[in-house]
């Protein structure tokens, strides 16, 4: 029975739309911008959220990860390395600077800056400072300027294990570091995209100078990853680094320069509080001050989601206002159409149609109009995204390969339906109130 009513409403609604194509088109035009605004806001916020949240995970780590900052003083590095050796649930990483290319020259991107700033003069990092473990920094005396040469400077990250469980780097080419194999004398390195860009752009000799290392090394490049970092960076196994840079070498002040070997970060899986306590106890026992140990649970994604949600609500509110203008258009056309169809509606009631179904037909027409408009707006949104990606995708690498988010499609359909209901409700009520006797008096 319901099926008969629904089918009748759809059949008659479809006939009504076909009979008044121009009016339907005008309704759709007024509604199109409103639905498109909702689709665009939803798609934009979804894409932005995905891009930002993915990069947040790459840079800060997955939510729930227990992250610790440990000063590389009093043998802390050695203690942490020993504790985490062979463990799969925790990874330590030591950061330093390295220069790949000609020795004894000034790197093209001195200070490890992104290559788009290379050669533009000035120091990307400002004045060079030396910082102690407590964070107190003093400006370093200006060094004698070295001659310019074919070398690039990168930030070097040495790892005790596979960091990707905490920071899901996206593979670009080659492979990731193999921590199960025997350490190699020629350290295997994985480049981030910016470092790969530098090596591709500049012809530099395959020699690497690591701050604090006893010798120059010849690296083996095994792969490239996207790590969400704009500065050139390389990743390598800590045990392979140790062949060339003993833990003791990190202690001196020279290597603290620009966050040298003394920067130690540890990443622990959620629920590793015992390991954290043990590590703290050992470090404090070795003389590291308790207040120099900072452990936090990564919560960036959740925090960012909350901020994005507020932004999305603001924009959706604005889109809804645009949608209301479209609703007013449908309402206007709907009321005019009902006025013209008084006799038709009276006749339909005379042949047995109920008031409810008559209202349903008017609503079905506006709902179908809303849905058609939604389909067009979603199509326009998807096409617009493809055009935008084709035009600007190269400038925003995180947008590359972005698909039209299904959430935007759903939002468009909901907006179309809501507009159809809001725009059709009053005309539907008016249609239902038309007396049948109209056909007798005509």
């Amino acid at each position: 029975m319901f099926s008969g009513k629904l089918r009748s409403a759809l059949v008659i609604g479809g006939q009504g739309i076909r009979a008044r194509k121009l009016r339907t088109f005008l309704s759709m035009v007024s509604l199109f911008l409103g639905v498109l605004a909702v689709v665009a806001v939803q798609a934009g916020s979804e894409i932005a959220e995905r891009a930002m949240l993915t990069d947040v995970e790459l840079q800060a780590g997955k939510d729930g990860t227990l992250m610790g900052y440990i000063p590389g003083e009093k043998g802390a590095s050695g203690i942490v390395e020993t504790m985490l050796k062979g463990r799969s649930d925790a990874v330590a990483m030591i950061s330093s600077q390295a220069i790949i290319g000609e020795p004894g020259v000034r790197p093209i991107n001195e200070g490890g800056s992104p290559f788009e700033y290379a050669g533009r003069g000035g120091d990307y990092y400002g004045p060079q400072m030396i910082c102690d473990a407590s964070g107190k920094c003093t400006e370093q005396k200006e060094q004698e300027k070295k001659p310019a040469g074919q070398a690039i400077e990168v930030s070097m990250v040495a790892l005790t294990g596979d960091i990707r469980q905490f920071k899901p780097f996206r593979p670009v080419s080659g492979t990731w570091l193999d921590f199960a194999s025997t350490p190699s004398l020629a350290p295997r390195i994985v480049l981030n995209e910016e470092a790969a860009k530098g090596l591709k752009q500049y012809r530099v000799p395959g020699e690497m100078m690591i701050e604090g290392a006893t010798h120059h090394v010849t690296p083996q490049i095994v792969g490239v990853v996207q790590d969400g970092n704009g500065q050139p960076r390389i990743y390598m196994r800590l045990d392979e680094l140790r062949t060339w840079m003993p833990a003791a070498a990190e202690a001196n002040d020279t290597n603290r320069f620009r966050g040298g070997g003394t920067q130690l970060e540890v990443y622990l899986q959620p629920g590793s509080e015992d390991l954290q306590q043990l590590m703290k106890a050992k470090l404090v026992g070795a003389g590291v001050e308790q207040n120099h140990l900072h452990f936090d649970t990564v919560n960036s994604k959740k925090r960012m989601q909350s901020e994005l949600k507020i932004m999305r609500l603001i924009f959706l509110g604005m889109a809804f206002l645009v949608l209301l203008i479209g609703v007013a258009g449908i309402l206007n056309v709907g009321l005019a159409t009902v006025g013209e169809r008084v006799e038709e509606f009276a006749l339909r009631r005379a042949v047995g149609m109920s008031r409810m179904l008559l209202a349903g037909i008017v609503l079905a027409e506006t709902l179908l109009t809303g849905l058609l408009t939604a389909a067009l707006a979603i199509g326009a949104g998807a096409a617009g995204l493809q055009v935008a990606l084709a035009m600007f995708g190269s400038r925003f690498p995180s947008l590359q390969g972005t698909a039209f988010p299904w959430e935007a499609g759903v939002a468009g359909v909901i907006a179309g339906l809501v507009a159809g209901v809001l725009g059709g409700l009053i005309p539907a009520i008016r249609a239902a109130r038309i007396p049948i006797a109209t056909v007798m008096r005509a």
Partner: protein
Amino acid sequence: MQPQVQVQAPLLQLNGITKVLKGQEEPRTILSGVDLTVHPGQSVAILGRSGSGKSTLLSLIGLFDRADEGQYFLHGNDITKLPERRAAALRSAEFGFVFQRFFLLKHLTAAQNVAMALVNGQGWSARRKRRQQVMEALETVGIAHLAKSKPARLSGGEQQRVAIARALVRQPRVILADEPTGALDTETGNLVVEVLLNTTRQGCGLVLVTHDHDHARKMGRVLELRDGRFN
């Protein structure tokens, strides 16, 4: 629930029907204690001057409106105070309406206009069955060959026959015709009246409101309404 058909029972029976129009002005009595009985296969003509209440009576019989007083029986069942939803179902199942103006939807073909009475939310039949019913109804009024024509391409008589086909397509028990020949020439009017009378031969009741005494004389009974009462 469908009213039960009783053998020999009148098709419809109105007892003491009164209708008062309540507007901004003084209430005006349109019908005053009208009695009317129609049996299956019977045709009744209602004559009367303009404003005598003919159309109001027809709208009460067709359940477009409710009487203020009196009783209305259909197949012996009291339907005087029927709720709107049930009234709509009865209009669909029991009555066929023909009006002075044909009320054909200009954007639909003759067949689609006839099918309009089938697509009214009172049940659902498959497209093929609908088409068959529509073609049978058009055949009955002799214009099956015009099924695909739009109203603008049909003459007045053809349009009225489409309207009659629309009234017949659900095989109603009663045909209510409100001055169906008013907009037609004499010859076409006669043809339309013949078509309507044919329906009574299949047991259908016919109530015809008309000003035309010639057409009225062709009916089984002729009643004249004056000042809200039958003379």
